[in-house]
């Protein structure tokens, strides 16, 4: 916990400008890790707080559409969030604040990498393992890898394209909608895509 909080949108803006990048990452990218099954209305904490706690749906909507994986790095993401809030506040006479709701409490997190010891050498093996692993594995390889390695696609799509030579499947996986929100939905979607390819192979 960072030990800082915001009671209104101006404080939110000023604190976002100052917080460590680990905190920005916690409230945006790692949202998936904390909501593996069910999520709030928007896929980042700033949007959800504005909409639910401040009851400012307009800012909630503007921040809610942000895809943190569209940005080159966290500083670029921070700049965009600051710009959105700044522009929103410039159009208001009164700064929206929490009256009945909770202040925004800033947090930060670190990723601990844990080798699972599991290896896949074919699509069938990959599909089988994916169905049973902890959902954090999906976050780590499908989302976190994009930022960690500065690539356009996650580990799954890259491996499927390069090692299994299945570019079409890789592309479909890389295009899975970020706004599906929960890791379980993402798992379900990837398994479904793999099954389609495996069924075609069986029929041949």
């Amino acid at each position, binding site marked *: 916990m960072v030990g800082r909080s915001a009671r209104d949108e101006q404080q939110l803006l000023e604190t976002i400008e100052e917080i460590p990048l680990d905190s920005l990452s916690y409230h945006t990218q790692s949202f998936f890790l904390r909501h593996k099954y069910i999520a709030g209305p928007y896929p980042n904490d700033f949007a959800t707080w504005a909409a639910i706690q401040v009851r400012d749906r307009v800012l909630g909507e503007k921040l809610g559409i942000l895809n943190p994986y569209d940005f080159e790095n966290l500083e670029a993401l921070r700049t965009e969030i600051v710009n959105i809030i700044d522009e929103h506040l410039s159009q208001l006479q009164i700064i929206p604040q929490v009256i009945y709701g909770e202040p925004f409490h800033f947090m930060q997190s670190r990723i601990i990498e844990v080798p699972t010891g599991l290896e896949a050498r074919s699509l069938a093996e990959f599909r089988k393992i994916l*169905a049973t692993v902890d959902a*954090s594995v999906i976050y780590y390889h499908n989302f976190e890898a994009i930022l960690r390695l500065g690539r356009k696609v996650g580990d799954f799509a890259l491996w499927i394209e390069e090692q299994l030579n299945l570019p079409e499947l890789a592309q479909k996986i890389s295009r899975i909608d970020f706004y599906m929100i929960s890791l379980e939905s993402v798992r379900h979607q990837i398994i479904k895509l793999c099954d389609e390819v495996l069924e075609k192979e069986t029929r041949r």
Partner: protein
Amino acid sequence: MSHLDDYREVVPKGTVDFLKCLAERVKGRKILHINSTKLGGGVAEMLRSDVLLLQDIGIEAEWQIISGTEEFFNVTKCFHNALQGQDQHLSQQMLEAYWEVNKENARRLSFDADYVVIHDPQPAALIESRLTQGKWVWRCHIDISRPQWKVWSFLKQFVVHYNAAIFSLPRFAQRLPIPQFLIYPSIDPLSDKNRDLSPQEQSRILSRLNVPTDKPMLLQVSRFDRFKDPLGVIQTYRLVKKHHDLQLVLAGGEATDDPEGKTVLSEVREAAREDPDIHILLLPADANLEINALQRSATIVLQKSLREGFGLTVAEAMWKGKPVIGGSAGGITVQIVYGVTGFTVNSVEGAAFRIHHLLDNPEVMTKIGEDGKEYVRQNFLITRNLGDWLALMNYLGRTS
């Protein structure tokens, strides 16, 4: 003896294997938990399961308790109340009694461990006697978001010497020069309070408690304490009763450390008088199976608290697939995702409206019950707690 593998059937996919991998990184290290009681209360309940599971996964886990005089526990009770915002007077003599008991315990206990976790304010001053190289962590289970300043200043002089502090909600974080971590409390799905019960077991227990099963049941499990708003629950029930023939069960222990507890209980009895459909059950602290059976038999569970620490009874009820309506207080707001895993409300009227809404829409009740159970499975089971401990040990080990 609990085994992590016993949890495979109830926890999310891959969790057990993931925890085993995570444990490999800290295997062989020793963690020592110290608190003030092994009996009763949520902390002791959680520690019991935590320690057994840590041992099962290859961590040398130990749990010790401090001993103290009656005067000491009176002082720490005052601490507890003052840290939760109540006005309390603490004399110099009382502070000295606190210090003295901690010193005596420090002479008696061995702190030979890689991680020494001190729970709550009672043993917090043990840090003064730290001689070993282990990492010391202060685990605070109570709401200190609005503490009485003098008491918090006294306690803070010890807390700042720890390597880290852990709180149960983000809002409990303080301005401290040490890292602060968030670990939500959790429930043990295999304990007597939460394990599956057969319909026969349930009906046997309900019949022993004299609770009929012929009407839909509203249930609140909590101490008879004003902050839990039992009178508000009765008012809510009366508003709903106009349109639905149901019964209300208020079950809980008397708050023995709360002088107001008896008064609240008699007010509740008075308010319920002459209504055969209101059942007030005064249960002993170890009535885990009874609470389990009541929660499983309920139609809707209420936790209409006005002020709350974390409120794990919400997760307990959600784990049993029940829709929960809770007050917008403390950790209830973390457990209930509004409209998805239950409803948070701010008034008697709000609670009554949501009960009507659920009773009139059984399919909504079913969906909320299912989603609530999954939400608890992902976020509030003991295995998540175990993962948090392992991650913390990993983190603290790395920063040495």
